[in-house]
């Protein structure tokens, strides 16, 4: 199997998995599951899809030469958590005190 074949395989797997995860999310709504369960499924499939895309399309893994990319992605996650979490905390607190 050549390099190209392997790459193509990985893209196909990625496309398939992404499609599957998307269908699952839509299905959760279409099947009329309870609100909590549907939201849970959507959340989980969303995160799973991010990981699939990073792995299959952007070729991020734990190997040594990918480590810098991985570090930057983890750092992005950390900062997103700080910024989004901080905003929710601050604004919710303010809103509560405006009651």
């Amino acid at each position, binding site marked *: 199997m050549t390099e190209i074949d392997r790459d193509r395989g990985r893209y196909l797997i990625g496309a398939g998995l992404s499609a599957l995860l998307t269908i699952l999310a839509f299905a959760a709504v279409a099947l009329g599951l309870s609100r909590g369960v549907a939201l849970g499924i959507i959340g989980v499939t969303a995160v799973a899809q991010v990981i699939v895309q990073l792995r299959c399309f952007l070729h991020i893994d734990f190997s040594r030469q990918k480590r810098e990319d991985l570090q930057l992605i983890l750092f992005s996650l950390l900062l997103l958590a700080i*910024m989004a979490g901080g*905003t929710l905390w601050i604004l919710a607190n303010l809103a509560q005190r405006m009651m």
Partner: protein
Amino acid sequence: MSGLFGHLDWTVTPFAAAIADPGTNTFVAAGAAGLVVLGAVALLGFLTWFRLWGPLWRDWLTSADHKKIGVMYCVIGIVMLARGVAEGAVMRAHQAMALNGGPLSAEHFAELFSTHGTIMILFVAAPLVIGLINIVVPLQIGARDMAFPVMNQVSLGLTAAGAALLMISLVIGRFETGGWSAYPPYTGRVFSPGEGPDYWIWSVVPAGIGSMLSGINFAVTIYKCRAPGMTYMRMPLFTWTALCAAIMLVYAMPPVTVSSLMLALDRYAGFHFFTNDLGGNMMNYANIFWMFGHPEVYILVLPAYGVWSEVSATFSAKTLYGYPSLVIATMAIAVIAFTVWLHHFFTMGQSASVNIAFGIATMIIAVPTGVKVYDWMATLWRGRIRMTVPMVYLTGFFILFVIGGLTGVILANPTIDYQVHNTLFLVAHFHNVLIPGVLFAMLAGIHYWFPKVFGFRLHETWGKRAAWLWIVGFCVTFLPLYALGLMGMPRRSSSFADPAFVPLQLVAGAGAVIILLALAATLVCYGVSIRQRGTLAVPFGDPWDGRTLEWAMPAPAPEWNFAVIPAVAARDAFWAEKTGGDPYVAPERYEDIELPRPTALGLVICVATTAAGFALTWHIWWLALSGLVGIGLAVMVRAFATQTTRVLPAAEVAVHHGRWLEAVHTARGITRDAEDSPANRGLAAPDTEVTP
């Protein structure tokens, strides 16, 4: 209403206002506008008279060389510094006379502090920092250019567009009056219906995008373009700080771009993100803005710390003390800087538990900075110290920055902040960290690396005069503001009623005169050095007995930087070669070198962005659309360019390098004491060894 010229008409210039309503206030505005126009005309005349249009176009505006781009960033920074300092001095003069009034109108004073703050942060400090990183980093890591040379040009173009819009706002119309942070709802369209906030938005947005692109460029360059052997723990500390600042740029600039664009939607399209009514929440503006604002100050100060690291090691001829701790401290600051933004709005009304969490985080961030200060002092200890200009700045920094840092820790207590926020105490604090911390470092860094770019040193005596004037001027201008703040004088006041403020206001006003002299001395220093470039020339490239790779090449550094990419074996790579062997040997073979071709993309984007920003400000829709389409077209056309690089034949490199090596071998080096004498031609022959 908005036809061909949008909201523009003949009444919008300060000249018209000065004719309609003569007085000090309007004359100051008209004078400033006149200076801009005169300056522009003088520049055009100068370029035409000396036939410099061709060289300017060929060698600078279309160049993708990282050193040239860095120099252009620094030029923007210095020009805008002149305007910013002048505005600061005008404000100080006004406030010194502002007991129950003062010469300027409240409106005009508000415009002054708004432009001054915006300019100083985004168009002085940031361009100087980004410019210096551009010049130095590829040289320090053994690279030939940035990873994306043309994107580098685009970043510069976007920053220049923002600066241009700020200059235009002096002549046409009025700037925003809500401070450099431009808080809504005041800057929303209900309370500020004019063009002011739009000027602010359209100069901040391009500059923000440009800085983010710079951050991406620097990070990729440092990750991917290091010379063989240049491991992370061998990178010079300036490069380390550049890496951390670059990553911070990538994450800190998007918030301000987003909050400004949301404000634009409020103003142009009737959205209600930040309005008082219909579900808007203006507190979220402060929240998003400072998610950028606080990291930004560390983006500025980290590379400054990098400069201090290089300067203290070089001018004491010692290895940097505590290198690993400096690296860790840099990384710690880069992360913690994202967790403290709320300290800019402690008084917004959230509960004490939220405040104290961010207060503690703020106090923690002082620790790594403290570590660094001790590291630099230990570096100097028992070193072979030369009191050159950068060292004078470093001394000023040591004493003054520690004061500024300590007042920062004081302000980190929410209870204290409730008392002194929005007073001149705060103004004293942030100038106390920004001027000795960032501005001194940039002036020191320019002095330090100037010879590498231009091939001659800066005049030491004038440099020292300038440095001392900056230090003294800073103290006289800003230290009194701490007292005034504690006495209760609010910031951003165009007048006051308490005569007790007058004496210290007069002192601060006198200090501003000293700062004006400092600025003048700085410019004289550059002028004198250019005239005496013959005696100050250092063609061999190592005027300070340097330690890192950038000193291992001729000065001015050739376009391709390194004749052959060096193999790095130690932390102070050039120093190791100098002490362990011969750094001036010809390599076995030279190779062809690929260099980026010049392109006008950056310039086209600059012009199109300026036009679009101006047009959006004045609601000239056809021009705004043309500008935006122009940007898109320029990028697309560029995508079809196939010949983006040119090849420099190995033979040519060999000739250039060989000639330099030959000259080095016949030259006599100088001792460290002679570094500031005309004998310094850039070849070091140190007298004593210093054990690290």
